[in-house]
């Protein structure tokens, strides 16, 4: 009998281009990757330099004067870095939990319940996706000032507690859930909430994971809204803390970059660990009964 299994290729075969077209493709991908990765390299490189060297016309990746220790020491120990991290975590997790709590029932209703005006309501949801935060931020800011809730966790989370993107995403996902299972559940005596909790949610784990990543990353990286509502250092998020080295007169770029590196690191590490889940969430499949 012929051996049908292909011989295991040597590792170098996998990266060695097979033809000129392959070579061009590899080059193109390499360029793309470089464009993506270079800012990070710049960031890490600059975080090890003194400020005057960051914008030196004679740019080198390896710093001429090594100021890494000082920069990172200042970022991690000369400011309450752990408080910033905790603030970021509280805000991101808080936003995520409330978003899931509001979006999942809304998405279920839009996907599976028949009621008058559901189409219009869903149209409104789609339309709301197009409204940028910048439009609503001024009225929201004024409102928060009036009720005296500026510089609170509530103010930091409030604009994001209902995510129309989440409603849209979950609605599309729930539509694929078999109607007959929901009907069987109604015959068996499930309430609508129990249908969501016991049947829909277990099947929506990939969608929830994907959305959680999107939401968490977006709010971790958000600089705009915290910059508006946070006034004191004890409510500052990690991302916002980067701005501390910037003043009207001069900016300590070395420390700003060190701060950026430290703030980015948790997200990058988390992504590397959850990569599989993240990809599964994007290529999610429906329920097989």
């Amino acid at each position, binding site marked *: 009998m012929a051996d049908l299994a292909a011989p295991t290729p040597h590792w170098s075969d996998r990266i060695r281009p097979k033809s000129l077209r392959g070579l061009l493709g590899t080059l193109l991908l390499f360029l793309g990757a470089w464009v993506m990765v270079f800012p990070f390299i710049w960031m890490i490189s600059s975080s090890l330099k003194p400020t005057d060297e960051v914008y030196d016309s004679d740019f080198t990746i390896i710093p001429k004067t090594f100021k890494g220790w000082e920069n990172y020491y200042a970022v991690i120990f000369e400011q309450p870095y752990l408080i910033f991290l905790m603030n970021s975590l509280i805000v991101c997790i808080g936003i995520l939990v409330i978003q899931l709590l509001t979006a999942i029932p809304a998405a279920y209703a839009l996907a599976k319940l028949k009621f008058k005006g559901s189409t219009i309501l869903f149209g409104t949801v789609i339309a709301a996706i197009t409204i940028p935060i910048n439009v609503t931020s001024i009225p929201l800011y004024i409102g928060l000032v009036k009720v005296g809730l500026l510089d609170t966790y509530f103010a930091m989370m409030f604009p994001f507690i209902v995510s129309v993107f989440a409603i849209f995403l979950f609605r599309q996902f729930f539509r694929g859930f*078999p109607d*007959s*299972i929901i*009907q*069987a*559940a*109604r*015959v*068996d*005596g*499930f*309430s609508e909430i*129990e249908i969501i*909790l*016991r*049947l829909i949610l*277990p*099947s929506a784990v990939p969608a929830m994971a994907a959305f959680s990543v999107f939401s968490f990353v977006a709010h971790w990286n958000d600089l705009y809204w915290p910059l508006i509502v946070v006034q004191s250092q004890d409510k500052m998020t990690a991302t916002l803390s980067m701005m501390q080295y910037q003043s009207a007169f001069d900016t300590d770029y070395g420390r700003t970059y060190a701060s950026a590196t430290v703030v980015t690191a948790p997200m990058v590490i988390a992504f590397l660990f959850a990569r599989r889940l993240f990809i599964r969430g994007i290529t999610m499949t429906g*329920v*097989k*009964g």
Partner: protein
Amino acid sequence: MARLDLSNIKKSFGETPVLHDISLNVADGEFVSLVGQSGCGKSTLLRIIAGLESPDSGDILIDGVSVRDSAPKDRNIAMVFQDYALYPHMSVGENMAMPLVMARLPLYARLPGMRSVIPVGRRTQPEIRGEVEKVARQLRIDHLLDRKPAQLSGGQRQRVALGRALVRNPQVFLMDEPLSNLDAKLRVQVRTEITELHASSGLTFVYVTHDQVEAMTMSNRVALLQAGHLLQVGAPNALYSDPASLDVARFIGSPEINIAAGEREDNGVRLGQALLPVSVTGQGPVQIGIRPETLSVADAPGLINPGPSAHLPKLTLRKRMIEDLGPEVLIHGAFDHAPDALIRVRAQKSDAYGASDDLTRAQSLQVMLNPQQLLFFDAQGQRLEARAQIAAEVA
């Protein structure tokens, strides 16, 4: 144990009417099939009984009590779905326990993890498990209780769905095409099992199917729906032998009934060269329904000879094609006088294991009709009464 009465049920989806004024009574312990082509409204009617849809008008009574405004769970019904609708993330045992958990525990005790903590939950837990195991043994799925639905075969899923419906001991058992996702062999087997289940449980069954064989073999009575109208309700044999209209006659019976155009004459109905000695009520053109199995072939090689029925009217059939089904053959052809109307003849072989080669070679065959087994319809397809004419028989 309950009787079920549907009175004047009407339903439309938007502008499209799906059910026109349906009334149907199902006696306690009866097995009634709702049968019809897809889109005839049979599933909608079943879902109205279940409470998953509400009728635009009309009423549903279970044991004389209107359940029109009750939620599905308060109707004490159970339903088996075409795709089984098992809860994908629960084991077989949990699937089957769900109706009991929902019925016996209050909401707070049903929350995740609470069942084993709260006293009510702890008390009912072993009792529910006992009942689930009893039903599982009855359906021979007790070894599957820890599996997930995805790990089961189609037939096993089907049984789990039946089991989940049975545990709650419903008053009315509703089934929506439960066999259509099974392969042909299994379908026959489960068909028998459902019939036995009906006999042993004594429950009232309402069974939706598009397959007339299922409807005919399983039910006490068959209700035939077409385009939202209830065409006829009756015992399976009554629908076959005494259909109220051409539509019913067409639907029941396989292969489909042959339709031939006949003309009224003074002493009978003319069909090509044959004069059928019957008098038919009404006026105008007559459509003659001829069941393929009532036709017999005279002097055909390899087929059972009809024998002393030589006095029956004969017609020449131009043969087109033969299907050999083993013990019998299906002959497709057309009568000499009407070459466009397809006529099928189902005939028994004289030797069940014999070949049909001789028949395949034959160009035309003499076919005999038994006037007593013919069905007559008017131009609109309404059934006409027919009486044998003694005088004509002599001629």
